[in-house]
């Protein structure tokens, strides 16, 4: 593969053979290439987990931070320099569990960033405990009587939060997945792509075959701007709908709302401090 986002030495990728992450990586790299982005103007941000290792394996700038904490730095990076393209990656545990509060509030800010959640319905890096999206009744070494918590519905949650672009894909379908990834990155505002992904090591129930059998694509005439219908789709299970489920182009982004960008779109990091303004501010105290 000749892709400028490919890393020079990709023999030592820490994912299990057959992991859905390999597919997602390939898909995202071809989307980035297709969008004609440069590695220099791209920042991949992530927390911790198997999915959150993605930035390590893509040739670009990256900020691989703390577990659950991908969205706050991603928001700040975009705000400090809106000329950057900022993509956040994480798993279902990282983004829906540990980082849940940031997801809620990032949706309120609506920064122009894209969040990809590798949703394999299990904890991979910590070896097989339940995640917020693990199916009811699923037995693990910790949830040994079966999961009795209700699984989180990220799509319904995202629509309720008015996240301005909400999509679900299955990584086993590269063509459709790439198309939606592209739309998500091009969307102005906060976009969430929940990626169904098999975990070959710890999830023997939600397998590649299971996802194939239990998903379907939304029809072309489906209108993602209808929020009520989107909610209905969000609650459909077995089969789960795939595609852009909800979209709202009418909201201003975080950056657009920031006072400093109202009249001047020069990124904050390219501005210099004005000493006479500082003197004025100090002299107000006389």
């Amino acid at each position, binding site marked *: 593969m000749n892709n400028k986002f490919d890393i020079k030495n990709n023999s030592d990728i820490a994912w299990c053979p057959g992991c859905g992450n390999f597919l997602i990586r390939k898909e995202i790299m071809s989307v980035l290439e297709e969008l004609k982005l440069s*590695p*220099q*103007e791209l920042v991949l941000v992530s927390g911790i987990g198997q999915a959150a290792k993605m930035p390590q394996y893509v040739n670009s700038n990256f900020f691989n931070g703390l577990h659950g904490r991908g969205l*706050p730095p991603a928001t700040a990076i975009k*705000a400090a320099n809106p000329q950057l393209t900022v993509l956040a990656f994480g798993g279902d545990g990282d983004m829906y569990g540990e980082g849940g509060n*940031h997801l809620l509030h990032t949706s309120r800010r609506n920064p122009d960033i894209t969040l990809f959640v590798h949703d394999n319905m299990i904890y991979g890096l910590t070896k097989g405990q339940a995640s917020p999206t693990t199916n009811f009744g699923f037995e693990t070494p910790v949830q040994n009587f079966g999961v009795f918590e209700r699984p989180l519905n990220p799509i319904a949650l995202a629509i309720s939060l008015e996240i301005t672009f909400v999509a679900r894909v299955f990584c086993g379908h590269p063509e459709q997945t790439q198309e939606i990834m592209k739309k998500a990155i091009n969307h102005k505002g906060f976009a969430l792509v929940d990626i169904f992904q098999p975990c070959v090591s710890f999830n023997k129930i939600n397998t590649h075959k299971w996802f194939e059998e239990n998903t379907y694509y939304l029809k072309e005439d489906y209108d993602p701007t209808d929020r009520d219908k989107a909610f209905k789709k969000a609650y459909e299970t077995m089969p789960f709908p795939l595609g852009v489920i909800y979209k709202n182009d009418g909201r201003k982004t975080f950056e657009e709302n920031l006072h400093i960008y109202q009249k001047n779109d020069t990124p*904050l990091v390219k501005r210099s*401090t004005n000493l006479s303004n500082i003197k004025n501010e100090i002299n107000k105290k006389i």
Partner: protein
Amino acid sequence: MLSKFENDVVIVLAGEAGQGIQSIEGILSLLLKRSGYNYFSTSEFMSRVRGGVNSTEIRISSQEVNGFRNRIDILIPLSDKSVDHLKSRLTDQTLVIGEKDKTTYKKSIEVPFSDIAKEIGNKIFSNTVAAGFICGLLNVELQLCKDFIAEYFASKKQDIIDKNIIAISKGHKIGKDLEQIKITIDKSKKIQKHLLLTGAEAVSLGALAGGCNFVCAYPMSPATSVLENMASYSKDNDIIVEQVEDEIGVINMTLGAWYAGARAMATTSGGGFALMSEGISLCAMIESPLVMHIAQRPGPATGLPTRTEQGDLNLVLYAGHGDFPRIILAPGTLEEAFYQSRNAFNMSAKYQMPVFILTDQFFVDSKYNIENFDLDNFEIEESIVKTNPDYQRFAFTKDGLSPRGIPNHGKGLVCVDSDEHDESGHITEDFDIRVKMVDKRKHKLKLVEKDITPPKLIGKENYKTLVICWGSTFNTLKEALEELENEDISLLHFSWIYPLHKDTFDYLNKADKTIIVENNSSGQMAQLIRSTTGFAIDEEILKYNGLPFSVEELKQKITNLINKEKK
């Protein structure tokens, strides 16, 4: 009987939260400073929005004395519980002035602020009447008062401005005509040009001058005023200010901002800072700059939310898992707060490590006049390089600092990782690289040494007793020692806490007796000094009831310790 106050008068306003003590103080502070008086004020509050009793001490003096006094010369109670709340600070000389039902004390003078206000048209003007009264007592020129009120209420309707002018004039006349009180305090033209600042404002203006352009925080007393100040500066300056969902978000956002090339600061108190611990550790791992203001209040847990303490030094010293360097500063004066906050940004950018500015409620809420700042001979140093295609964020270099690049500034890529990483920023489990990276981070503390501000010695070099303090206790302790007039005692104040200055041991070892003064219960600075230098300080004067030390109690406690030695 005539009450005379010469060179120094302590006026205390007390009343319920929401009654307007702060607005009286707001009027008085600028007005008195602009008329040439040395001004100091500090406030104590209950943790409630309405009711209770809060008080603000206002000190007007011929000399610049900015210590907290326990003594009250004149008390102006706005509520009937005020006298009782402050009874331990009232003396036979204290005058209580105000409305009849609120001034039940042996020496009192009735001034019906509310009735006068009602005559003007509304009880709401009583605060302005009271401010006018104090101005009258202090002989502030009436025209200055009127002009100031017009400016202060400029955003209000003309009717409101006019009535406030009447209110200040009526109050002024009563104060001026009062024959029972004679106050003689020197004024100076020089003071008119001074700045009048709170500790929070000094920290905030310092940050602004240091090039801070990104501020995030979660509101928490007593650190919120810095957030509000920065928000107010953002109207005319390029600053992004964001209130974040929680302190974990705050620290991670701050680090993201620095990564992209901003100069970011967060402000919090102990409880909020505790939530940031993991992020502090991330800061160390990705060698990010970070400036953090922590205004301490008494803990543990929610503690006394609106009170003061120096109890979080250990928290700040040890916060974050793993071994890594940091810088801790604790200003004792407004000047130190300004210059330290300003310099913190260059220093943090240069050494790529967190710089903590440790204040407390007493410090951030105290206000006094100081000379204007010197803004010459200072430049904002970004310490950012344009990257080459082969750029490595964590490159091993001769001087031990890896040049810091930011995304899309040059041809290189900027990769940072919370895992241990190689020079390029990618995950590694190579044991040799691990050791080299730990050593590289650790070595930065050595580089900092040449920048450490030495502790400040007040008094003679050949002291017998050395009194040691840090942070906010400086002004009060300095005044207490000046009043003791004992040439054998000197004061050593640390505004740079960690790493400790190399001369610390010599300063301590020279003394026959060492006494440390700390606003906490365990002598955290004494512990730090002992663990770093091996020197055990002889005596501790500790206070942890939630209030700052007063000049009077420090004089008493130091005298007791000196006398104990003599016996």
